[in-house]
């Protein structure tokens, strides 16, 4: 049987009077790619930030491999979750190399860290060429690759991505999503939130549709791709 890696139960988040998430639940199995799709303002980033301990939840619980997840962000990172945040948030005044090394902060084993550099360079060879370059001088696509590489340097069990396609040209999006698939095939589970529903559904095994903080629908991604409501509301214009 497949093992449940991550479970979110009835997560509720309020920003003052604004209800950003109302009782949202989700499961991520080992080796799985799950996506959460929804329009702008649906609560996707709120969910990711709540999961990483960056936003306080008003209700609900997170479980990682059956045990409650800590609420302190640095403990969450150490327990195996690593987020590529919305808008990438790389350290622009630092070099590509420094960014990657910072990503490995929570780890000790130097040999393993060295192997992971090679792994990341095999996924994104451009980063190796740009190693000494200041991260702020990279193109948007390269910055997103760096953000993913930096997150992978933490050697996560689960890679979380908040809108990795944001602001990128379609061809670059496809390139990055192809690498996400490879990352997953090499044993990292992936939780992805996206406005770009088509790309997310093409990549993921299962998906949840979020609408103004509530679950609208969930299921296998290939079924959702054929679902007439989803087609009309989310797949209309997207590439």
């Amino acid at each position, binding site marked *: 049987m497949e093992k449940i890696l991550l479970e979110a139960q009835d997560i509720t988040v309020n920003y003052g009077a604004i209800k950003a998430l109302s009782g949202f639940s989700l499961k991520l199995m080992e080796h799985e790619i799950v996506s959460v799709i929804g329009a702008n303002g649906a609560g996707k980033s709120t969910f990711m930030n709540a999961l990483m301990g960056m936003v306080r939840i008003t209700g609900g619980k997170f479980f990682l491999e059956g045990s409650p997840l800590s609420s302190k*962000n640095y403990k969450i*990172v150490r327990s195996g979750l690593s987020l590529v*945040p919305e808008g990438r*948030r*790389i*350290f622009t*005044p630092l070099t590509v190399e420094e960014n990657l*090394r910072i990503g490995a*902060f929570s780890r000790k084993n130097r040999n393993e860290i060295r192997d992971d550099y090679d792994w990341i360079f095999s996924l994104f060879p451009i980063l190796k060429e740009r190693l000494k370059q200041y991260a702020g001088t990279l193109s948007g696509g390269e910055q997103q690759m760096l953000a993913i590489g930096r997150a992978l340097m933490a050697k996560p069990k689960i890679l979380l991505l908040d809108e990795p396609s944001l602001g990128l040209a379609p061809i670059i999006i496809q390139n990055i999503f192809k690498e996400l698939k490879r990352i997953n095939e090499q044993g990292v589970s992936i939780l992805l939130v996206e406005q770009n529903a088509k790309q997310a559904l093409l990549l993921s095994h299962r998906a949840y549709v979020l609408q103004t903080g509530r679950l609208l629908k969930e299921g296998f991604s290939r079924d959702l791709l054929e679902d007439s409501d989803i087609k009309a509301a989310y797949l209309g214009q997207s590439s």
Partner: protein
Amino acid sequence: MKRNIILILIGLALALWPLGGYQEGIIILMCINCVAAMGVSILTGFTGIFTLGHAAYMALGAYTAAILTVRYGISVFPSILAGGFMAILVAWLIGLPTLKLTGDYYAIASLGLCEAIRLILENWQSFTRGSRGFPGIEPYTTRGFAVTIFIFLAIITFNFLESRLGRELKASRDDGVAASLMGFDTHKSKMKALVISAFYCGISGALLGGYMGFIQPSMFDMMKSTELTAVVVFGGLGSLSGTILGSAAITLIMEYFRDISQYRMLIYGLLLVIIMVFRPEGLLGSREIWDLKMGVKK
């Protein structure tokens, strides 16, 4: 490494170049000021926390070393270290509540701290002799000693800024949220930077006492605090070589134009305005001097 060798050569030149007593004094002051400025640079330039009160840590270091050597006959080196540790202790107590909050709470608290420490030193007459000052400090800060400590700390600081801890500080400066996401406890990162910077200032204060032979609370007022931060901004936030150059330059200017030293605040103000207008990123920006030479641009 090449950089360490260059620093040692600079140190040898500063220590051994035959000079008259007046020039020697300027070199000692330069080293003392550079040590304090490096401390503030770690906090403000590399961790992004503004301070307007680091003269307080100099005062703590100076009075601790002076009282230990003069009144308790403790030898010089442990007394100087004790000065550094006294600064660490107070910084830790101040940082604990204020650095937890985001924004510039520390800067505001540091203003109060500076005045509070000065008032305590002025009013605790039985222990510190108050505003009359504390005389009779053994002149232990010789040129060789000041240069050795400065170069030693400079080498350590350059290397530490490229270490794991250095990257931790820069990450929390550049993007606190992203740093948290990398698994940093950003409150702890900031505490580390504050405590280290206080230590440097404590050592610097202890050296100043050993150079002047006499200390008084007014030497460590807000003007001195402002000067420390101004020098770091002047040299370029995030550039240690810029801090050192800036601090050395300002010490020289102030000493060679002693006659106009009552206008020093005016001069700082003017310098800062000129920098803001013509080079808002400071003398060296956020690059070290050797990066500029290689033409690496922002």
